[in-house]
């Protein structure tokens, strides 16, 4: 603290991939209910969490995201029946993959948020932001720039 007075407080930047039917609607509900959460998250809307191509997640890290959050409908509630299960399978593989790339696995998180869970979404964003703040800035972008 004493020797880092001038260092800027780390503001994490998180990319959220939210499915249109449950999670994006839930995030909108947090807004219409005027719930407050951290400014860290920037949401990219997809129709289904099954649309979240692993490339999207890696791209977000490459561009400088400190964390990536994927939200879909709860199991058995997917608007497209089973897209969230596909997402879940990819997520587990992707977790293993990012570790190999030197990204802390905790920087990637998948959660189920329903259209009525505005409060849960707000809480999730705050929790995840806190986690990322503890991890500190992601080094991916910096490393890419150094080694390329």
């Amino acid at each position: 603290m004493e020797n880092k007075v001038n260092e800027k407080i780390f503001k994490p930047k998180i990319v959220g991939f939210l499915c249109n039917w449950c999670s994006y609607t839930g995030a909108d509900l947090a807004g219409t209910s005027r719930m407050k959460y951290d400014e860290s998250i920037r949401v990219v809307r997809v129709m289904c969490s099954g649309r979240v191509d692993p490339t999207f997640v890696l791209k977000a890290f490459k561009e400088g995201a400190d964390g990536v959050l994927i939200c879909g409908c709860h199991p058995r509630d997917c608007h497209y029946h089973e897209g969230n299960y596909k997402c879940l399978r990819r997520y587990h593989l992707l977790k293993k993959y990012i570790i190999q790339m030197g990204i802390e696995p905790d920087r990637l998180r998948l959660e189920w948020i329903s259209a009525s869970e505005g409060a849960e979404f707000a809480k999730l964003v705050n929790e995840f932001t806190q986690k990322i703040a503890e991890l500190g800035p992601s080094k991916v972008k910096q490393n890419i720039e150094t080694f390329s």
Partner: protein
Amino acid sequence: MKELRIGVYVCHCGTNIAAMVDVEKLAKELSEVKNVIVARDYKYMCSDPGQDLIIKDIQEHKLNRIVVAACSPRMHEVTFRKALEKAGLNPYYLEMANIREQCSWVHTNRNEATIKAKDLILAAIKRVKWHEPLDKRSVPINEATLIIGGGISGISAALELANAGKKVYLVEKSNKLGGIMNQIDLTFPFLNSARQILDRKLSEVVNHPNIEIFLNTEIGEIFGYIGNFETQINGNKIVFGNIIVATGLKPFDASRIPEYGYGKLPDVITSLEFENMLKSGDIKTKSGKQPQSIAIIHCVGSRNEKYNVYCSRVCCLTALKYINQINSVLPETSIFDIYADMRTFGKYCEEFYSSTSRKNVTFLVFDQKNELPKIREASSSDKCNLIINFREKLSGEIIEVPADMVILMVGMEAHEAAKEVAHKVGVSMCGNNFYIERHPKLDPVATTTDGVYVVGTCQAPKDIPDSISQAKAAAARILATIEAKTVDVEVTTAFINEDLCCGCQTCIKVCPYSAISFDAVKKVSIVNEVLCKGCGTCAAACPTGAAKAKHFTDVQILSQIEGLFSYA
């Protein structure tokens, strides 16, 4: 690619956005971004003058991409797409940045919120560059309607449509039509017979040449989209253009509240069980005696954090109806009405309350939030069957009320089949399993799935006239779409680039709608656009990039991500 000419419009939404996001500064800064020809801020972009501003700019500045930073696209994307169309631009050249629901309304630091809003808008600018014009697909509308649920809501909608000469398939899970209304004796506030009202409707429905009724039938998988749905009923294919969901309610299970002893104390009964007694004209305790005193407890399972927080809307008035009925059948019986708040909204309902309160009845108030009344068996010296013990809120005193019979005014919950039906027709549910309407104020009949309407108590607790109003509104909406002969359908389906497809058929395995098939001659996958609902799972799984989710393409989303990090 043609020269990019982007227009960026930042909405104040009154002060909804402007209070937390520096919209003027954003508009100024964004006007300097590459390819942005004009950037403006305006009080209400969605208003007519706001839309006219966009339309005028498109024509004057020859804009070919539009970014609107305002509310959620779930709110006004359609509005702005129409504006683009009016200006002669393909509606899919629009991208929205959600700086209200997901920014100004949820943040407290104006500087940070403005930075975030800028990121979101820059992302939209990057994304919109890659937008492709999509052609509207107009399809003819099948005039038939599928109605799921044969209660008063389903029946009312069916008659409205059938009387206009349109075919109706009315599917009911149980073995008879009429739903919960079958169990009701008289209706409030005029004490008309529910049976008489229902019977008249039922005979119309049963004999109507345009209504085909399927009893003991559960709905199967539904395919297609507005104008052209199809499903199988008892092995036969039926096709229809619209769907009305009217799955109704489930009475609250009173045994969940331990204080009331329902299920253990024989003379504690639910309101629906009491309706049955009223219908048979036989109000008797379990031991066959005429009750000397009857207590009515309100808000059973309603307006309580532990059970359901919402009000079930009909219980108060139903209780008042009981007071009237008991009074006329058993004038000597004393009645205790134990309520939390008396809610008697609706036409002639307050009048009904005031006339009922002049009858022979004692009103008592209990503390619904903190302390539910406790019902116990009376001892032999008490000269009654049950004792209700509670703190009477107005006097503040703990009192005991004697009763030979206690009627629990059970609230409404969504039908247990609601969830299953929601999946089949593609509507969302709110936390308590009622269906979500398209807009809580402006569109309480339609859903976010085109061609699917929700009516009656499956959408929220309501009484008979409200259910019928909603049912007839849905029918009128459907008649209007049928009148238009054709309907524009979602064009954001999947597409396979045959040149890139390697024939691995991964997309076929992941498609939840079996919308992709394999062309054995060309050795490529083919999308059936009628069946595809555009989830994009195939695009995420395709190893070569041949499968493309229109309007959610890889390049669009990747550019959007890039845009999020293009500033600071």
